[in-house]
């Protein structure tokens, strides 16, 4: 069994110091890893990431993150990544990370992803250069996600994204903005490679639970939607008598 704590869209700013650290103390004994699904910063500034890095310094488990659209706004994404890595956070962009947990292995393939929409209402790789660039960015991200997931030879595999691979977890958002919130191409990549769980953020007004066409569970962990510091997902839990398989309180 592996316990994955996950949250996204923490949107740290200069005013956020100390807002996450107290909650991380409860990770000890309750989770094996913390995944952060992008939008680490408010305005995409390296100094905002430094505030988050300081909060994460005391995390009792490994922390793995992807960046989100906010983290790109001021073109400081490389500095944001570097600052977090100095604090011990693993930042993935088209990359993967393997974590050993008591004899079992967890593989995480992480990438920001991008938009484009979903079956029946999505953009095409056609027309103006700007439109083609938009869709091709999503295509490239999806292909890389599939490649990285497929290469993982671990007991459990998780896709860590910022943008959503499915519509299920966007329910609550305005239908008109779905193409800016995710793409079916990400789900197709996950289904092609196979995975135990896909985590994403970005959809603040969306829903937590969904699944791909092939049945891979998808969870939206955007903090404004969760209204929790994080949620813990247990993979491979088998003792049905110990606790209910449905949501219960950690603390």
């Amino acid at each position: 069994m592996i316990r994955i704590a996950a949250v996204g869209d923490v949107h740290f700013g200069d005013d956020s110091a100390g807002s996450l650290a107290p909650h991380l103390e409860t990770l000890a004994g309750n989770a094996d890893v913390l995944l952060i699904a992008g939008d680490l910063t408010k305005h995409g500034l390296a100094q905002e990431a430094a505030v988050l890095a300081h909060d994460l310094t005391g995390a009792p488990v490994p922390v793995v993150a992807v960046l989100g659209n906010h983290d790109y706004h001021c073109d400081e994404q490389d500095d944001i990544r570097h600052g977090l890595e100095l604090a011990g956070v693993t930042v993935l962009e088209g990359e993967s990370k393997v974590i050993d947990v008591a004899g079992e292995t967890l593989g995480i393939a992480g990438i920001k992803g991008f938009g484009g929409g979903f079956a029946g209402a999505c953009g095409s790789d056609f027309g103006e250069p700007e439109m083609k660039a938009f869709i091709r960015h999503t295509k490239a991200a999806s292909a890389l996600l599939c490649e990285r997931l497929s290469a993982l030879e671990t007991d459990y595999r998780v896709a860590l994204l910022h943008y959503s691979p499915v519509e299920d977890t966007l329910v609550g958002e305005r239908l008109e903005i779905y193409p800016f919130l995710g793409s079916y191409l990400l789900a197709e990549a996950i289904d092609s490679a196979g995975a135990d769980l896909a985590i994403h953020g970005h959809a603040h007004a969306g829903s937590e639970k969904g699944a791909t066409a092939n049945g891979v569970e998808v969870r939206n962990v955007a903090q404004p939607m969760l209204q929790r510091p994080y949620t813990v997902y247990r993979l491979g839990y088998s003792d049905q008598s110990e606790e209910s398989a449905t949501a219960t309180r950690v603390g």
Partner: protein
Amino acid sequence: MSCSDYDAEHLRDELARDERVSELGIEVSISGGKAFLSGKVSSAERREAVGEVAREILPHCTVVNEVTVTVLNEPNLENIG
């Protein structure tokens, strides 16, 4: 100058780009010469910043700030598979 739906979208764009706010999820609706703001932010300071930017961008509108502050509950646990 009256308060229009164009104003709503210009404000939404500014609420995303202004460093004091950087929020994409604030809803703006115009009714009866008033600009109604709704959505969630993570702190009282950020809620005030939303109102401040709105008043700067739409000085000809009465700004009604109905944005709320998200309160975090206890973490949840779910078994997958």
